[in-house]
């Protein structure tokens, strides 16, 4: 019997593997591609050095007033001087701890469903989650907590964007789920009402809804009632979000196998037991990436509030730019800062969403 001696593995030739191989394959595979690569590299070589020097090397970082903007580069002093307004609007400086606390609580309330054990989650996590917008608003307002009263006219800045977006999606969750259930219902009138609601709040431009909220809503209420502007905005955002989320849930429902409904029926569960115990958890899990995407969209849309006079971060930037102490064209620095802030948040959330999507994929495969 001949003994079989396996061949040892040899390293690959240099041209096809390692860094040289990579460069050849990915940057210069064909003549046309090579030309394009060279053009792009040339273009980058011309603008990147100038960009870097404007952004960082020549820029002004220290100082407190317009006078510190002496160099040719970006004047980041503008950003640091206005930082408090960018983040907190005109909220009184002494009370800013309230906003910080509210944001922390928001983070805790969102993380709670993942960290709490199962039974506590439903009894404690969910009610906390739903109560947060109301408690948070009352806290920032101050009167119910015995703190100094801060009218909503002074609320502003990036924290306002965060707060409005979160408060809206939290209440939109149950509302949109109900609308989505109604849309699936066999009762024709209920189904029609829900379809009209969903299509209306999805189809009308957000700005139109805001205008309706500020111009038409006062006509709908008896003479003399004065609904707080921010409250009106919040209601509009909730309705708008619910329209989009209802469609997200609709896709989620479709992704649940018919067999789940049948198994629940065959056990004898009632409609609401079946919906809340079996269907709801699965729908939320399956729809999570889309829910996050919708939230990101809503978050970006909070900048539209500038147009109706809410002092969120973009509006604050406009105010800062036109302030008489700071004239001199700092538009680029201001917008870049706001863009960076939003980009970090939105990109981060989209990474989380992609992560969840990947986890969902593997769990479904098993």
């Amino acid at each position: 019997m001949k003994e079989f001696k396996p061949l040892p593995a040899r390293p690959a030739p240099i041209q096809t593997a390692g860094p040289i191989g990579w460069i050849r394959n990915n940057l210069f595979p064909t003549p046309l591609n090579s030309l394009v690569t060279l053009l792009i590299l040339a273009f980058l070589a011309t603008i990147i050095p100038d960009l870097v020097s404007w952004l960082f090397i020549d820029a002004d970082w220290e100082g407190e007033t317009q006078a510190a903007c002496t160099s040719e580069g970006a004047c980041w002093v503008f950003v640091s001087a206005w930082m408090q307004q960018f983040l907190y609007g005109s909220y009184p400086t002494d009370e800013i701890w309230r906003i910080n606390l509210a944001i922390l609580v928001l983070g805790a309330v969102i993380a709670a469903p993942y960290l709490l054990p199962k039974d506590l989650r439903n009894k404690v996590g969910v009610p906390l989650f739903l109560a947060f917008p109301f408690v948070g608003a009352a806290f920032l307002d101050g009167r119910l907590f015995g703190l100094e009263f801060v009218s909503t006219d002074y609320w502003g800045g990036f924290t306002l964007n965060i707060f409005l977006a979160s408060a809206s999606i939290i209440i939109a969750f149950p509302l949109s789920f109900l609308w989505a259930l109604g849309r699936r219902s066999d009762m024709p009138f209920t189904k029609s009402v829900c379809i009209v609601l969903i299509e209306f709040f999805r189809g009308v431009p957000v700005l139109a809804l805001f205008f309706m909220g500020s111009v038409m809503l006062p006509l709908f209420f008896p003479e003399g009632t004065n609904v707080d502007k921010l409250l009106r905005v919040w209601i509009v955002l909730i309705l708008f979000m619910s329209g989009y989320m209802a469609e997200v849930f609709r896709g989620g429902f479709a992704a649940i196998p018919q067999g789940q409904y049948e198994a629940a029926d065959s056990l004898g569960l009632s409609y609401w037991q079946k919906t809340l115990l079996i269907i709801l958890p699965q729908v939320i899990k399956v729809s999570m990436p889309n829910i996050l995407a919708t939230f990101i969209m809503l978050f970006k849309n909070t900048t539209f509030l500038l147009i109706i006079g809410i002092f969120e971060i973009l509006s604050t930037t406009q105010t800062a730019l036109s302030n008489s102490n700071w004239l001199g064209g700092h538009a680029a620095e201001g917008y870049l800062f706001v863009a960076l802030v939003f980009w970090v948040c939105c990109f981060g959330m989209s990474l989380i969403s992609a992560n969840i999507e990947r986890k969902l994929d593997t769990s479904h495969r098993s």
Partner: protein
Amino acid sequence: MSQEQRNQSQVATANRSFFNNPRNRALIYQFLLLLGLGYFFYNIVSNTLANMEARGIKSGFDFLFTASGFDILMTLIPYDATSTYGRTFVVGLLNTILVSAVGIFFATIIGFIMGVAYFSRNWLINRLSIIYVETFRNIPLLLQVFFWYFAVLAALPSPRESMSFGESIFLNVRGLFLPEVVGEPGSNWVVFAFFAGLGITWYIKKWAKKRQDETGEQFPVLSTGLAIILGLPLLAMLITGIPFYLEYPELKGFSFRGGVTVIPELMALTVALSVYTGTFIAEAVRAGIQSVPHGQTEAARSIGMKERKIMSLIIVPQAMRVIVPLLNSEYQSLVKNSTLATAIGYPDLFTVFVGTSLNQTGQAIEIVFMTMAVYFVINMIISFLMNRFNASVALVERK
């Protein structure tokens, strides 16, 4: 069970079952819902009527025939302060359609290029595509509009120091000034020749397909078609002695007169809308191409098909199944987002009608209703056209 017991139980069930019958329950729930909605709307309507009377707000659509009293920055039809509100509505509508159409056009081009670029073998191009999408998707649209309007376009030179291209196109802080093509008598023939060229090319395409079915010979439709579409009008121009002249914009005083003016508001809005919406379209194109199983390309290659043909005959048709519905929602999104024109003063429907006109007349209900109806209709038309297109690219499946 005895007969008597059976009868008893049937009667017992009959009495209890009215409410327990699922159909009756459904009726009762819906009736309650109807009552609730009815009460809600009744309240709203009575309050509104009372409030309108108290504030002296008129109702009805008569205002559409009264003079508006204000000028508009850019109008596609003749308009001035004596024009009626009805005309204001039309001007705004046309401006909205303009910015939406141009935005959709460029967004689609950018989106498809960037979407396909993702699959390039060239690492740099792939990265550029990813950077483009991830950057512009995560920055709010309004911020991008402001950036283009207040940061970029505001930094352009004054009219006297305009950037110019060939002494006929000028770019400055007041806008983009292009020469206008003005037709002389006889120009109609050229236009006619162009459309005739389109029609003829369409027929040639059908004839070529038929010929290929019958004889297997392929006909260069693309090159022939291009030749005809460009050649016929050229021929007509030569025959009629080039019946066009260009009206150049000229610097008179502080600004340009003549030619076509593209105001910076329109430019900023269009660029921002195109770049922003382009990212979502690029994602849609990427999802569509990825949805086609790799086995399709492998099978096509093993038959010996060329790469270009594989793309156009195998990949793209299948990818369109995924892309078209996404395009539908993105186009509608763009139209809705065009209302941001208000923020920079571009006179779209929203700005001139829900903005200025509503402020002056106070007739919120009629104006908002008309405006919303318009956006609904525009989006329904887009939906209808995209659904027609979708149906034509859908796969036939076993029901």
